[in-house]
């Protein structure tokens, strides 16, 4: 019996009143018994007729008495229970709770991240299971309830933001939902719901938030601190969460990254595109393994023009592996004109992975192919002979380095000689990729500003220190214009002044190169720098990020001393372009660098590396779920379509229709409307030529290992009070059977109905023709009249009354 009571009745708000009501049931019972015991005797002559009538009506009278007694006991009991405000569970509580016309707002949050694409049975995905649960939750809505639907996949958002009670609309919206390719962003979804609560659109204590997801590690739940202002559980409402699903092993191509975004090729030997592919595996057991990887180049028609296959090896315990590939570029790629380039897509795809997800087995990148690199060398037109330079000016040294003699006809670099005075015409900078400033001391401030604009637009301004013995007045306007944060001495320093007694020299530092554009020189760097000496330079102190090459000081004893992080080659990003400075002059009095083998590769790699360092304005990379800003370079956009990729080795495996992004044009250029959902390569047509949008799967989305449920529960504690969803019967979690419902008011209504019923029944059973009957209310009425009148109780029409 106690178990039954515990099952039916949740704790009372005021249990003492419930017990009092139970005890007070003794009052009507006692009155009933006393009324039988203490009745006044009435001598009676016509007893035979009374006995006869009594025998006829005995059963009916007993029934009436018990009925009235039962009603009165119920009234007292219900009064106590109602005042105790019981929290009822079960069907009755659900029914009584439904009398509350205000209802609840149920927020159904569905994780539509990529991990839910995993199969969870024959032909069924985890996402299908989540939708089934959501439908069950919707079906369990009660009268007065309304619901909203939210996506938790990044970017989180509303599917149905306005609460509606139309179940058909809610079900239809659920059926139309598809899983995405991003990672979950549950905090963002909850923040949206919390903000909506704060807007007063939902009564907090009547809101129910249901989180449906597989809750893999891809979401990085536990690592994310939660915004306390986004609480949706506890006092803010009821939070119900589905249990995390079991984990799966998965391999994901994290990224494919070309070494340079711009690749210059010549017409004869073609070229190679260097790229690095990073592959991650997510598994509890990280044994030694390898997977096969195919890297392909895809042209604008979606054809594979070049491909190679590599194996990626994982050592035991290794979760992320990288592989560098040099993809040969076919020389028949001939649509490259002198100025424009072609954008090729690099696609890295894992082959025949077992288990896990397939959408993350591939990644994309884009690289621009160029045949010509236009470089302006700014120097005095008339060369002058200095020392043993045999008449070569710094500009000539650089020009020779850029276009070695004998291969002019096939060289990718086109050198344009420009005098400092000619730079006063800004049109001279048009169609140039880089400007090599041999004589910055001959420039005026407006020219510096033009050069800054040139760099902002993506060009390279490489300043070479002029071989002047005096001070360097050009430093100030340069620093003022570009503001790189460097410290440059105006007076050149010589080796003799620094270390005259030691008789040593300055040389390029042999420490590992940190500058990405110079990575190709890393293998031969030590050999190349060995003969290089520097005799004179301008003092240059730059942040470590800007210093590409340092100087070491070698003393006669053979010891090497660091020169106090004195940089000789510095780089600084300016807008989409760059500013570079060589702190020594291309002059044999200052350094023997121009005469050494290092000079040519250093100039070339620096030039190509810097120009290929930044994303091209025509190529935008994004992650599925992002809403990238395409910018002004995409002005005049007329079409943006996903490139269908085909080929022998490349197959598309997309299980749903691709929705091409929509866009609007604003002051800041082209802006997409909504996030990009499907990964892939989107080809755009603009007034300025073709553009490319590369969309990859979220690199975090492939981690499908099982989350630590205990840690996850601890994380959920930060959201307020919550409970698990009943996976067997999701609707039961929402029904008020599992929810405490205060039915005090409902019981008061039932009590009122019982009082009325008792009055009617007692009135009917009293057989009275007029006046208050024998009901409780009738007796109270009579008692009130007696109290007011001061009369003694009337003798019920006794025969002997006068």
């Amino acid at each position, binding site marked *: 019996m106690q178990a039954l009571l515990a099952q039916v009745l949740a704790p009372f708000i005021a249990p003492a009143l419930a017990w009092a009501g139970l005890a007070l049931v003794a009052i009507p019972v006692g009155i009933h018994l006393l009324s039988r015991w203490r009745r006044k005797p009435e001598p009676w002559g*016509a007893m035979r007729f009374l006995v006869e009538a009594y025998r006829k009506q005995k059963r009916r009278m007993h029934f009436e008495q018990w009925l009235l007694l039962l009603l009165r006991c119920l009234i007292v009991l219900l009064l106590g229970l109602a005042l105790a405000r019981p929290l009822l569970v079960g069907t009755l509580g659900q029914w009584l709770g439904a009398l509350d016309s205000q209802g609840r707002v149920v927020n159904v949050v569905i994780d539509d991240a990529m991990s839910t694409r995993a199969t969870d049975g024959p032909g069924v995905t985890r996402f299908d299971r989540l939708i089934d649960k959501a439908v069950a939750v919707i079906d369990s809505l009660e009268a007065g309830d309304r619901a909203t639907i939210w996506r938790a996949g990044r970017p989180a958002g509303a599917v149905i933001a306005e609460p509606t009670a139309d179940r058909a609309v809610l079900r239809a919206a659920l059926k139309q939902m598809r899983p995405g390719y991003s990672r979950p962003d549950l905090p963002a979804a909850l923040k949206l719901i919390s903000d909506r609560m704060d807007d007063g659109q939902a009564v907090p204590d009547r809101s129910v938030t249901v989180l449906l997801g597989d809750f893999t590690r891809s979401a990085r739940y536990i690592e994310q601190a939660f915004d306390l202002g986004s609480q949706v559980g506890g006092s803010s409402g009821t939070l119900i969460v589905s249990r995390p699903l079991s984990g799966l092993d998965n391999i994901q191509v994290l990224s494919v990254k070309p070494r340079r975004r711009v690749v210059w090729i010549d017409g004869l030997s073609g070229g190679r595109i260097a790229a690095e592919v990073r592959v991650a595996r997510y598994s509890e057991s990280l044994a030694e393994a390898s997977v096969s990887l195919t890297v392909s180049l895809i042209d604008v028609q979606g054809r594979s023009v070049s491909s190679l296959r590599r194996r990626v090896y994982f050592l035991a315990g290794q979760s992320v592996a990288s592989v560098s590939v040099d993809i040969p570029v076919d020389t028949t790629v001939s649509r490259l004109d002198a100025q424009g380039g072609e954008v090729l897509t690099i696609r890295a795809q894992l082959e025949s992975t077992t288990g896990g997800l397939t959408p993350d087995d591939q990644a994309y990148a884009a690289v621009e192919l160029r045949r010509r690199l236009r470089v302006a060398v700014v120097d005095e037109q008339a060369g002058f002979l200095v020392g043993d330079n045999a008449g070569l000016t710094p500009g000539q040294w650089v020009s020779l380095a850029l276009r070695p003699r004998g291969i002019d006809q096939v060289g990718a670099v086109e050198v344009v000689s420009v005098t400092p005075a000619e730079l006063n015409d800004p049109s001279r900078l048009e169609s140039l990729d880089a400007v090599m400033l041999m004589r910055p001391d001959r420039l005026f401030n407006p020219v510096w500003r033009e050069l800054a604009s040139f760099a902002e637009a993506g060009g390279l301004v490489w300043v070479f220190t002029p071989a002047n013995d005096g001070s360097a007045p050009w430093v100030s306007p340069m620093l003022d214009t570009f503001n790189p944060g460097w410290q440059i001495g105006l007076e050149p320093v010589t080796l003799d002044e620094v270390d005259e007694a030691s008789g040593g020299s300055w040389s390029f530092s042999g420490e590992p190169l940190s500058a990405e554009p110079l990575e190709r020189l890393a293998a031969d760097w030590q050999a190349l720098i060995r003969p290089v000496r520097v005799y004179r330079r301008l003092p240059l102190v730059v942040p470590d990020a800007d210093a590409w090459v340092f100087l070491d000081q070698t003393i006669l004893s053979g010891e090497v001393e660091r020169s106090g992080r004195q940089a000789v080659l510095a780089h600084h990003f300016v807008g989409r372009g760059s500013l570079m400075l060589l702190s020594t002059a291309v002059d044999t009095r200052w350094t023997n660098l121009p005469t050494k083998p290092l000079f040519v590769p250093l100039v070339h790699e620096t030039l190509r590396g810097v120009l290929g360092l930044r994303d091209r304005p025509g190529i935008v990379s994004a992650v599925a779920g992002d809403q990238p800003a395409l910018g002004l370079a995409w002005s005049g956009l007329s079409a943006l379509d996903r490139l269908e990729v085909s080929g022998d080795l490349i197959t598309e495996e997309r299980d749903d229709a691709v929705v091409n992004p929509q866009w609007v044009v604003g002051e800041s250029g082209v802006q997409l409307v909504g996030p990009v959902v499907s990964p892939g390569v989107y080809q755009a047509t603009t007034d300025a030529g073709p553009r490319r949008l590369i969309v990859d799967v979220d690199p975090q989305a492939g981690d499908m290992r099982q989350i630590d449920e205990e840690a996850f529960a601890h994380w959920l504690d930060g959201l307020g009070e919550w409970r698990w969803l009943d996976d067997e019967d999701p609707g039961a979690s929402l029904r008020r059977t599992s929810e405490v419902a205060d039915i005090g008011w409902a019981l008061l209504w039932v009590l009122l109905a019982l009082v009325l019923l008792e009055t009617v029944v007692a009135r009917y059973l009293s057989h009275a023709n007029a006046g208050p009957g024998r009901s409780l209310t009738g007796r109270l009425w009579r008692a009130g009249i007696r109290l007011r009148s001061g009369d003694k109780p009337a003798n019920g029409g006794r025969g002997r009354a006068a």
Partner: protein
Amino acid sequence: MPPTDAPNYLDPRTLAAIGPIDLRARMIVEGMMTGMHRSPMEGVSVEFAQHRQYTPGDDTRFLDWKVYGKTDKLYLKQYQKETNLDMVVLVDASGSMRYGSTRGTVATGSKRAVSGMSWSKYDHAASLAAAMCHLALRQQDRASVVLFTDEIKTATRLSNSHDHWRTIVSALSSAESLEVSEPGESSSGDNPGAGRPPGRTDLSRMFDQAVARLNRRSLVVLISDLFDDIQTIERGLAMFKFRRHDVIVLQTLDPAELDFPFRSPSQFLGLEAEGRLNLDPQALRSSYLEALQSHLDQVEQVARRFRFDYVLLNTSDPLGPALSHFMARRDAGIGKKR
């Protein structure tokens, strides 16, 4: 306080204040006489009634010799003596007759009503019987009173002597000393009506005993509440009819018995030891009245079938109508005998 208006003598509420029955009876008779234009005491004497021709075998003592001398024919003289009325009043003195709601408390045996203000059914019946006997004796009719409960308890002889009035009044007064059980003593409330204690109405034996006593045609006045089986009543009246007695049935009931006005739940105690009964009277009122009315209808129907007079007396009503009825019936009975 004595009444100032003679007709008030017939009001039970007035009579209830008068203790002795003989005094009550005289006041009733006086009340009856007041306002009458002609005395009802006519023709009650030994005088000539008629002549009839002599037939052989007739008693020669009643030959009218004067007529024979004149007409030479033999005629017999018939006298008034044959027209004298014998009236027997059967008064129910059972326990149920002690119930009275008109005033005061119930008159139960020696526990007389407080201040003598109650008016029980027996009071009503005794007063009526005394008044009737008084009237009969004043007209030289022979009268007798029989008190009965479950059997005849007291019976006076038939007489028209003047002193017989004292005997009748004494008999009626002695009814108060008849053995009557306390209410509800003999059985529990769960078994009402069990057993037949003394003082309970038993008309069957009474009828047998009364018929055996009456060897002449008489006017029988039955004053009772008749709380017995209708078959018993019918059998008793049939016996009177068979013996060619004339019967006046005066069924005497208290107004509370006729209306059952109780409201509060009470414990009803049977006055004839039927036990006690806890009940809500309002729930049973209609059923009770239905049973009572059925009984009354049956009694009246039986009386009418035997061509007996039947009058239902409410003890709260004046006694005049009942006495008038008696007087009319007496005259009619005398007429028939002539």
